[in-house]
């Protein structure tokens, strides 16, 4: 029997009504940059490896880490994790403990002996890298990956540069560092230690490109009257002595004064404690808030009983007497001036940690390479010096001096050298918009506190084991908001009043513009800001 005309209608005939024509604004899936990724000096895709970690895919997460940084276990210890400072979750219920996850997975990689994926790229060209600090090793790692023949010369006895000579053992156990360096070595980089480049010009003949990753390993000189019975040395010398001659640790006496406000000063002070000092003071000319040292480092130092004497400079050292000038600091204008008052403290040792300079005398007279007034090698945007094929990076050029930054320089240098050797200009990838907190809809994130672990251990050179268990890694990684990138929460698909989002069998989503009316609910209810409404 026939059905009534018009009043009875077959199902789903409205699919013929393409309501997409109503749309004036249009949703689009976008990839916004998560703040963590943006800030990472090494350019790690943190969000991506957190995502893999969430799924318990630790090997894949580690592989993702080493796409940008060959030192996850090291970074998980010494990186000052600016990522966590900008983590959007910080504005909600505490940033994700990215650093500890990185360390935990980095350690897992060492324990399980995971190695880098073999690169199939091949080139006959040769690159020389001078210096085995984080920048040099990272550059070597990437250039090898790109297929080049890489020689790396290190003037010291041991590899690692400031990772070894600038970071005390209790913060970075040497077996961890060694393992991560060895992994790079195993990838085929030809490393020669105790080899100092005296004449760069001679080397240039043998190489298609050179990367100067010579670091800043010379203590800056100070203009202080020293007429001392006390031991006076630079922090860098102290660390080097301890590394190269670990059987004969220096005796700094009972009371130690460290001069400086950076991380090195903190490291030196904490090392002094571990060497048996009972009274360790840090003398710093500005206020504690102005100290360049990382906040957690300062806290750790204070917790260990180190005293920080702010607004003071050392004017002279006489015998064991250290004379301090008290300073006035105009916080607003940043003007530091002597107050005229003095103070005297007693020290068995005084350690200077007021900066490091680049040893670049060997570059003198090489045409094209110029050194700035501050003693830093001049480079262009592509990290190349004035001499074609010679690149420089890390602490030796103008920029921030952290291990993480050095790794970033190393990676960038490798890319620049690669481009140079292929006759192209290096063009960095264009950066997407940043997914800041305002772009998120945090209603969908359950409050879940950050799993904090104190890294503060005993007053010795052993590192405290703080790594997460596998489950803890997953739990903490789960806290990631996935800012700016779809994490397949299906909100858009579920909320679209017009069923205009197609969810494929594999979970991927697609907007069906035939029916999308452009209401914008998908974008509003996207927790992570991965949908953008465009006109």
């Amino acid at each position, binding site marked *: *029997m026939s*059905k*009534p*005309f*018009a*009043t*009875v209608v*077959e*199902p789903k005939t409205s699919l013929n009504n393409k309501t997409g024509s109503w749309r004036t604004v249009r949703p689009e899936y976008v990839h916004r940059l998560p703040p963590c990724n943006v800030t990472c000096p090494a350019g790690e895709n943190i969000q991506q490896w957190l995502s893999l970690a969430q799924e318990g895919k630790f090997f894949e997460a580690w592989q993702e880490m080493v796409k940008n940084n060959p030192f996850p276990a090291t970074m998980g210890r010494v990186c000052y994790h600016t990522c966590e400072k900008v983590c959007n979750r910080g504005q909600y219920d505490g940033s994700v403990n990215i650093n500890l996850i990185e360390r935990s997975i980095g350690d897992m990689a060492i324990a399980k002996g995971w190695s880098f994926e073999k690169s199939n790229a091949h080139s006959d060209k040769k690159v020389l890298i001078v210096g085995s600090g984080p920048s040099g090793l990272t550059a070597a790692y990437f250039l090898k990956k790109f297929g080049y023949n890489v020689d790396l010369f290190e003037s010291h006895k041991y590899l690692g540069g400031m990772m070894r000579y600038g970071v005390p053992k209790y913060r970075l156990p040497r077996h961890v560092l060694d393992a991560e360096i060895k992994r790079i070595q195993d990838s085929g980089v030809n490393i020669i230690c105790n080899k100092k480049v005296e004449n760069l010009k001679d080397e240039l003949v043998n190489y298609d490109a050179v990367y100067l990753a010579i670091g800043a390993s010379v203590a800056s000189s100070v203009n202080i009257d020293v007429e001392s019975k006390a031991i006076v040395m630079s922090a860098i010398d102290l660390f080097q002595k301890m590394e190269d001659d670990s059987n004969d640790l220096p005796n700094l006496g009972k009371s130690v004064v460290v001069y400086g406000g950076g991380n090195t000063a903190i490291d030196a002070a904490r090392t002094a404690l571990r060497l048996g000092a009972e009274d360790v003071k840090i003398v710093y000319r500005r206020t504690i808030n102005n100290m360049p040292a990382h906040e957690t480092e300062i806290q750790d130092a204070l917790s260990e009983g180190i005293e920080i004497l702010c607004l003071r400079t050392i004017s002279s050292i006489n015998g064991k007497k250290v004379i301090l000038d008290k300073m006035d600091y105009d916080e607003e204008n940043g003007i530091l001036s002597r107050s005229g008052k003095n103070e005297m403290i007693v020290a068995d040792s005084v350690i200077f940690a007021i900066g490091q300079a680049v040893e670049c005398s060997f570059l003198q007279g090489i045409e094209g390479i110029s050194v700035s007034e501050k003693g830093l090698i001049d480079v262009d945007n592509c990290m190349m010096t004035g001499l074609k094929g010679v690149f420089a990076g890390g602490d030796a050029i103008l920029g921030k001096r952290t291990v993480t930054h050095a790794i970033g320089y190393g990676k960038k240098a490798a890319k620049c050298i690669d481009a140079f050797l292929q006759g192209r200009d290096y063009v960095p990838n264009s950066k997407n918009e940043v997914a800041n907190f305002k772009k998120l809809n945090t209603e969908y994130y359950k409050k879940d506190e950050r799993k904090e672990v104190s890294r503060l251990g005993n007053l010795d050179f052993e590192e405290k084991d703080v790594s997460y268990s596998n489950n803890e890694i997953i739990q903490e990684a789960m806290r990631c908001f996935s800012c700016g990138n779809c994490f397949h929460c299906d909100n858009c698909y579920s909320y679209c009043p017009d069923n205009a989002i197609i969810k494929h069998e594999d979970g991927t989503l697609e907007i069906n513009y035939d029916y999308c009316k452009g209401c914008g609910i998908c974008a509003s209810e996207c927790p992570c800001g991965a949908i953008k409404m465009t006109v």
Partner: protein
Amino acid sequence: MLYQLEGSQAVARAIALCRPEVVCAYPITPQTHIVEGVGELVRSGQLENCQYLNVESEMAAISVAIGSEAAGVRSYTATSSQGLLYMMEAVYNASGLELPIVMTLGNRAIGAPLNIWNDHTDAMSARDAGWLMMFAENNQEAADLHIQAFKIAETVKCPIMVCMDGFILTHAYEKVDLPEQSEVDEFLPPYEPAFALNPKNPCAIGAMVPTTEFMEVRYLAHLRQLEAKTVIEKVGREFSARFKRNSGGLIRTYHTEGAETIIVAMGSVLGSIKDTVDDLNRASGCNKYGVMSVVSYRPFPDEQIREALRNAKRVIVVEKAFALGHGGILSREIELALKGLDIEIITVIAGLGGRVITKTMLSEVFQKPKDKLIFLGLREDVIRQEYKTVLDERRV
């Protein structure tokens, strides 16, 4: 089998014989005995496989029937008077949705003033609602029409109203011949809906229809009503053949052959009219008077009526409703059916609000109609008095 039954009981039993699956009831005088009767048949198990719902209003009663019919089962309800008006929105809806619901209308006047007695004003209010409407002359026909109604409605896909005069038929004990269940089963096959709510084959019923199709929907409904004329006649013939008595059909004639004056009416008043006509013909010794019953009021059998009345000189339409400020309703439609024929048409409005219609009154008006429009038994003294008052008080 013959029974001496109250009209409502006869209808209730006839309904039960048709095996409805959903019956909904809301009490209103004088329809109540019918739904009480069906209810008792359901509760006693005599009517098996039927859901009987006591609902909270006539609106709900017809709506439940709409729902159950749309879900594909035979459904029945009954009402009267105000009840019909209260459900009117859904009455139109049921026909628009092409749902073959069967409803008894126990005809009653409409208030104000409140009046529970019989006339046809309620039925007339629904004449354009798209339902088929048939009028029973006596309780036998009331019972028979219900059995035919399901068949007609389900064939045409249109709801049907079986009208029977309130009290006069619903409350009258008469002899009624009710068929056996097996006979009805043979006459009336199980309901097979053209469409229904069905999870296995979903469709949407009751779409909004835009201007571009609405007229077509209405015209198709009109065509179905026209087609219903054939169906009603066919089903009536089939019924007569099977049950050996005449019930239903479009119209019925009584001694119209050669009659000069033919009386036209609907419902129970036809009995008194036939008796009166017999008396008059007997007295005059010739067949001067005839009677035509309109059994199917909707669809309106205009051609059949024209054919039946074409040789009369005078047609007197006795009707129990009228259009205020205008006149007869049925008579206007009869007039239209006879357009162009030289026949005098007299309208007799009778029995409003249960006003007694006696053979004496009928006899008088049949013989000497004083006017074209006559109000039978109107108390003119009251009118004179009251209308004067009205005129006196009128300010404009």
